[in-house]
């Protein structure tokens, strides 16, 4: 996702324009309200997408997203620039989601992972929607994926979203979550396997109908 903001182009995706981002970061450090607004424009939907899937309640997710940006604005002076702004924002978002989960102390319908580790084959899908080059996925399938993600534990869910959805590298996720890189990979593998299992069940039901 790329956004054009004024004369500068700020990317929130893979092709991050580092020079313009650095300039904006520098302005944000000086508490430039306008520059911070540009950062919010660039990342608000991505951060919200992550938080939305982490907490499942839309209103609460919006509040947490707001909190992410407020905290970022207040503590921009402490941002050392060792990681990208995107990683930093996701780190704040992740910490807030974990804090919230600890407060609630809930265990969201974690499903059994029995057998999922053995799944390693590709889908044999009759449906054209499964083609990797297909960008649009219909709302029904999105809902199924969202349910599958919500049924995972926070450990698996956060790694899956940060790596596969937000495209963060293993090392940064490991640092963020506080586990070794190997554990991140194991969690990612299990999360994907769980999602595969869930989708297979859904497709089998569809075909049966």
């Amino acid at each position, binding site marked *: 996702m790329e956004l054009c903001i004024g004369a500068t182009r700020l990317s929130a995706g893979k092709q991050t324009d580092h020079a313009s981002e650095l300039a904006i970061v520098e302005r944000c450090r000086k508490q430039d*309200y306008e520059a911070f607004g540009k950062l*919010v424009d660039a990342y608000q939907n991505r951060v919200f997408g992550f938080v939305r899937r982490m907490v499942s309640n839309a209103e609460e997710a919006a509040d947490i997203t707001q909190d992410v940006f407020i905290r970022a604005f207040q503590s921009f002076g402490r941002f050392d620039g060792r990681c990208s702004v995107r990683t930093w924002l996701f780190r704040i978002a992740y910490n807030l989601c974990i804090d919230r989960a600890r407060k609630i102390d809930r265990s969201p319908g974690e499903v059994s*992972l029995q057998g999922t580790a053995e799944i390693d084959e*590709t889908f044999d899908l009759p449906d054209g929607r499964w083609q990797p080059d297909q960008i649009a996925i219909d709302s029904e399938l999105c809902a199924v994926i969202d349910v599958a993600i919500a049924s995972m534990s926070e450990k698996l869910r956060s790694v899956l*979203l940060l790596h596969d959805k937000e495209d963060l590298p293993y090392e940064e996720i490991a640092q963020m979550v506080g586990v070794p890189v190997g554990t991140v*990979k*194991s969690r990612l593998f*299990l999360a*994907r396997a769980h999602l595969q299992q869930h989708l297979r069940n859904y497709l089998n039901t569809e075909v049966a109908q």
Partner: protein
Amino acid sequence: MKRFEQDKINGLEMRLTEQELDKRLDSAGQQQVRTMLQAMPEEPLSLSWRSELNQVLAAKRDSKIRRRRIAWFLSPALGLGVAGALAVVTMFKTPEVRTSQISGDTIEAQLVASHRNSIRIADVTGVGLNSYEVIEGKNTSTVTPGSDLDGVDFGSL
């Protein structure tokens, strides 16, 4: 359930080396899941959410500016206050005479004793007589009225 999941993760880590895990993660099935997730649409936030955030950020910024202004006024005042207090303390402080106790028969002790002695003598006898004379005078007979010198006619000399 959580324990079971943790066991599963640990078991997977122990069973597979990192290369094997990488290989599995790069398999077509796993990559398909990744592609699907990346293709998932993003839910946009409402304009009211954004305006609410702007209000909160503006309020935070204003309070920060206010705090900075207050600090700008307060810090010199505080500095002046501290400096004044220090000045008062320094001015009204009475000088303390520190004496050091020197004991024993060292040269320093003897010097101090001699100095104190001379001061005492000066207090008693006044200026014009040194300590040597006083100490000598203790051993010799003092000049008293009605001595041999009474009859001497100093005028004829």
